[in-house]
């Protein structure tokens, strides 16, 4: 009997270890998405603004990690971690940390199936993702330190509050709002904050001309943009795959596998959708739109990657690719200048992803999905615009005209990204 209990405890331990390992690997893939956003954005801006977008991306990641540790995590999961991270602050050593992670008794008692610190790791990389969405949209014209200030507020408060509504057990969760891995909580959140930023900032100089003219401002390095997209694609296996949160039994393992397949197929569908519509409309395979299409497929499937069949996921992606194309063209008509397509990819495809959940998940209702969508957009947009306006009327959000003309790199970073290559412009 005792031997049986011992064996059972050992199995518990291995299962716990497997789930923890799985969460850590998936989290590392999500961390890798930060590199994806960085490369994507660096590829889609002009050379003269590249060093600054790089600085923004690495800087925001660091700020997001620190603010979420200091404050955001406790707001988002008030009960979950029993304030442990907060309490960690009171000591420098590890004593308390060890004390707060799960022990075998908790595991065997069914109270825990993975390390709390692994959970924190998986959560902290998500908040960085949300913030990364903003940086691309406001690129090439925003003051570096105003951006960082906003990043601190978003990751400390704005994101965690709406994250709590759904994943922390808040009212959206209780209403049955379905958002498996964060089409809404992460992507739409980021896009809403980005839209607020763009509205406060205004378009880049020269982007829109008189008489409704839309001028192209080509990204300077498309191999980087492509690399960034493929990094994001890879990282998304962690983003969605890890959101199952458990792999150590047959059912969960099957779910994770389905999530991997559907994530991949939705991206493929999105890419193809955007490529076909670009071909039909422009007559050309516009690479930047195609990359946005793949990302739109990924964002759309994120709300429910275990719902559809692989074929269904492909279709969801295809439609997302089409939508993102239309959105890119339309936002330009509305003179909303989004250099990397963040609003279209994360906002439009994010909303579509939330609303299409009921098609493959019988438990979800369109009404609740819409409500959740509105709550997220409302909260994030309103608070963000408040912060952006506060920044605008104090330190300012936009660089002056000459800096914008000469490139923010020289003024904010004091160096150039490609000192030997760039031609005068």
């Amino acid at each position, binding site marked *: 009997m005792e031997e049986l209990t011992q064996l059972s405890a050992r199995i518990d331990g291995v299962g716990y270890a497997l789930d923890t390992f799985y969460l850590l690997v998936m989290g590392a893939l999500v961390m890798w998405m930060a590199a994806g956003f960085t490369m994507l954005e660096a590829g889609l801006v002009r050379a003269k603004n590249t060093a600054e977008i790089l600085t923004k991306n690495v800087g925001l990641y660091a700020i997001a990690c620190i603010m979420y540790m200091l404050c955001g995590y406790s707001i988002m999961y008030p009960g979950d971690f029993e304030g442990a991270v907060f309490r960690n602050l009171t000591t420098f050593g590890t004593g308390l940390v060890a004390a707060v992670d799960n022990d075998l008794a908790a595991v065997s008692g069914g109270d825990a199936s993975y390390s709390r610190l692994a959970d924190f790791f998986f959560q902290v990389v998500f908040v960085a993702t949300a913030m990364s969405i903003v940086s691309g949209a406001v690129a090439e014209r925003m003051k570096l330190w105003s951006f960082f200030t906003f990043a601190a507020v978003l990751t400390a408060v704005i994101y965690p509050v709406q994250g709590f509504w759904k994943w922390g057990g808040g009212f959206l969760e209780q209403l049955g709002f379905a958002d498996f891995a964060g089409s809404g909580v992460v992507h739409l959140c980021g896009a809403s904050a980005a839209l607020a930023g763009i509205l406060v900032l205004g378009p880049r100089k020269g982007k829109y001309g008189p008489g409704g003219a839309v001028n192209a401002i080509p990204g300077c390095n498309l191999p980087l943009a492509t690399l960034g997209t493929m990094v994001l694609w890879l990282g998304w296996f962690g983003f969605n795959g890890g959101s199952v949160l458990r792999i150590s039994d047959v059912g969960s393992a099957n779910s994770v596998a389905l999530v991997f397949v559907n994530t991949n197929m939705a991206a493929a569908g999105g890419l193809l959708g955007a490529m076909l519509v670009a071909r039909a409309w422009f007559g050309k395979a516009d690479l930047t739109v195609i990359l946005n299409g793949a990302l739109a497929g990924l964002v759309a499937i994120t709300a429910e990657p275990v719902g559809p069949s692989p074929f269904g996921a492909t279709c969801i992606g295809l439609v997302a690719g089409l939508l993102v194309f239309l959105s890119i063209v339309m936002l330009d008509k509305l003179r909303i200048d989004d250099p990397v397509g963040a609003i279209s990819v994360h906002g439009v495809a994010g909303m579509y992803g939330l609303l299409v959940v009921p098609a493959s998940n019988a438990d979800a209702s369109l009404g609740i999905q819409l409500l959740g969508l509105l709550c997220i957009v409302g909260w994030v947009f309103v608070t963000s615009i408040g912060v952006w306006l506060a920044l605008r009327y104090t330190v300012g959000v936009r660089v002056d005209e000459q800096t914008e*003309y000469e490139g923010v790199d*020289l003024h904010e970073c*004091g*160096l*150039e990204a490609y000192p030997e290559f760039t*031609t*005068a*412009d």
Partner: protein
Amino acid sequence: MKMITAIIKPFKLDDVREAIAEIGVHGITVTEVKGFGRQRGHTELYRGAEYVVDFLPKARIEVAVADDIAERVIEAICGAARTGKIGDGKIFVTELAEAVRIRTGETGPAAV
């Protein structure tokens, strides 16, 4: 014929091209150059070491024109390229002994 060479601020290039085109001159050759003059460059900082980038990117435009419109072209360039700030640039005029249009072999004013 005259060869008019102007060193201007790069962002004035489009304005200058349009101004010349109004006079009926459509051929221009543009070179990206570095200018050193009274306008100062900027200082960059790399890993703690300051360095001065003391050249400024300028556009050098060449227009070959018949003698009779040279004056008007010079004025058009001047008008379009002026910002009134230091670094607006210079115009240099030289005598052109001959001009040939390669495609047709035409020479003289008909070629420019």
